């Protein structure tokens, strides 16, 4: 059986490039590249030796390649001191990387039609997914959106890989003025979509899930929660998710996710502890709530 455990590695930076509003950085990390599956993420330690920044930074993996034994490229926006430090790395600088982490996107068994929706740099993890789906004979249609043209990530790749690629921007500087959810119903109909994959901000995932449920297709969504560790120990990245047993648990985005079935996430309760979540204040153990079953 193939080894799916994440690895911790120190590797040299290979390339750093600016992609419109974002940065894409590739690092030599053979163990990670070889284990990676679309939807998984990596964390990077920032600030160097004796850094004053103590938490790991979770990053979307854009691509893995087999050159130099295996490289991983991740995409981020240089907001805050940690990611600004990361954006300032130069080739041959060493980076401490951990990955691949989290549950990947589940893949359909058959060659079905897939709509992939990305918001901002949340589209980054969708391209490796698109390639995997295409290899399995699936039809892929992209819907990418952001506030402005510079923040829509991967338009060229989307056009190349997908049957159709639809773009939306808040200011109308690229494609349709509006949100991805404004055009999504039409894309679902036109492409005869069987499944929806999405990654981006929580409100976008909520609206995409609602649309998928309306068209009665499954939604696999990857959440972008803030994390301190990414490995499942710190418990900071939790969100309320309904398990197979119908019980809501505060699930970890890093190890139970980041990919969840959209309809299982209680989007309106994100940021709270729902009163009926397992172990919420006042919660009483019911006959079925053994607490052993895993969320989602």
């Amino acid at each position, binding site marked *: 059986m193939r080894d799916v455990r994440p690895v*911790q590695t120190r590797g040299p930076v290979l390339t750093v490039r600016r992609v419109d509003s974002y940065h894409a950085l590739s690092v030599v990390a053979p163990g990670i590249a070889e284990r990676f599956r679309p939807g998984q993420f990596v964390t990077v*330690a920032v600030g160097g030796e004796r850094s004053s*920044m103590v*938490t790991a930074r979770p990053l979307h993996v854009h691509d893995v390649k087999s050159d130099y034994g295996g490289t991983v490229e991740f995409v981020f926006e240089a907001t805050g001191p940690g990611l600004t430090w990361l954006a300032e790395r130069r080739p041959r600088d060493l980076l401490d990387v951990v990955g691949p982490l989290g549950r990947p996107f589940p893949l359909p068994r058959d060659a079905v039609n897939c709509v992939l929706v990305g918001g901002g740099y949340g589209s980054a993890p969708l391209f490796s997914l698109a390639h995997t789906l295409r290899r399995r004979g699936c039809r892929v249609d992209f819907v990418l959106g952001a506030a402005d043209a510079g923040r829509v990530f991967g338009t060229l790749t989307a056009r190349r890989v997908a049957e159709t690629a639809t773009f939306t921007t808040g200011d109308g500087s690229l494609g349709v003025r509006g949100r991805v959810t404004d055009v999504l119903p039409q894309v679902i109909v036109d492409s005869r979509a069987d499944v929806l994959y999405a990654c981006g901000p929580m409100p976008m995932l909520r609206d995409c899930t609602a649309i998928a449920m309306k068209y009665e297709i499954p939604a696999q969504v990857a959440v972008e929660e803030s994390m301190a560790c990414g490995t499942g*120990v710190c418990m900071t990245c939790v969100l309320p998710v309904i398990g197979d047993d119908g019980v809501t*648990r505060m699930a970890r985005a890093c190890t139970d996710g980041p990919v969840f079935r959209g309809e299982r996430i209680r989007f309106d309760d994100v*940021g709270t*502890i729902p009163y009926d979540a397992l172990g919420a204040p006042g919660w009483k153990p019911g006959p079925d709530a053994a*607490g*052993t079953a895993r969320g989602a």
Partner: protein
Amino acid sequence: MSTAIGRLELPNPIMTASGCAASGRELARFFDVSKAGAIVTKSVLLRPHAGRPTPRMAETPSGLLNAIGLQGPGVDVFLQRDLPWLLSRGARAVVSIAGGGDEEYAELAIRLSEAPGVGAIEINLSVPNVASRGGRDFACDARAAAAVVNAVRSRARYDVPVLAKLSPDVTDIVAVAHACADAGADGLTMINTPRGMAIDTTTLRPVPAGGPGGLSGPAVRPIAVDCVFRVHEALPELPIVGVGGVTSGLDALELVLAGARAVQVGTAIFADPSAPLRILRELEEALDGHGIDRLSDAVGLAHRPPGTVGVMRLGESRRRVDFDDRH
């Protein structure tokens, strides 16, 4: 590098800190958990606990504020799933416990004593005391802390050491340490996270959500060193487990020199999941560099009076040189 905390004998002094290693399984993907001195579990409660709303953390200079709210599945799942797994991997399990009152702590002590393989119990006292006015933490009140220690010590199996984990947020930590020792604690873990708060200047709201969090990371290390130093001075025979912002072997050595017989690694694990074994290696090298073979020779070494010659165990070939200032 072996050490002992009461009856708990450890092959080396480096443990994980409670709340930073879950129950070991996640970290076992990065290092062999049996190679650490012990794995200290996230605090176990009697019942499942959903924890606090998000955001639960904020990064601060050289530190991390967290308010997780003790999320966990409860003692039943712990005994059924997590403890057997830890033991099957050959790890030594120190189980952290938390409750709302003496009875809950006592019941946890009983449940854990019934299960074979618990190496020690660490009492998390930085938990609001339901019975107190305003829900003050047990750790902030020597009498309340002692009552919990007594409840746990009297119910836990005689051969399972009981450690009390103290908070630095007190006027006199030595008084709390004395109270816990008198109540039967076999050792002390110091320090739990001091309270802190950050305010998000974008949302204009406190982070973590809803108010204060516990501060961890290198920012608190001097506080930990001071607490360990003062309590070791007052209670030199009582085993102390030092914890607070340890990121390197030299950081661990600081706590040992202050008086700790073992050292826990917490926040460092977040950015470096295999940190415990790296820190162990670095500590071994640091002791070696000072010519110290046994950890016990370094414990509390910083307490020697000023003017004592640098290295404790001088080689036979070296002679002590005294200088006369009055010439």
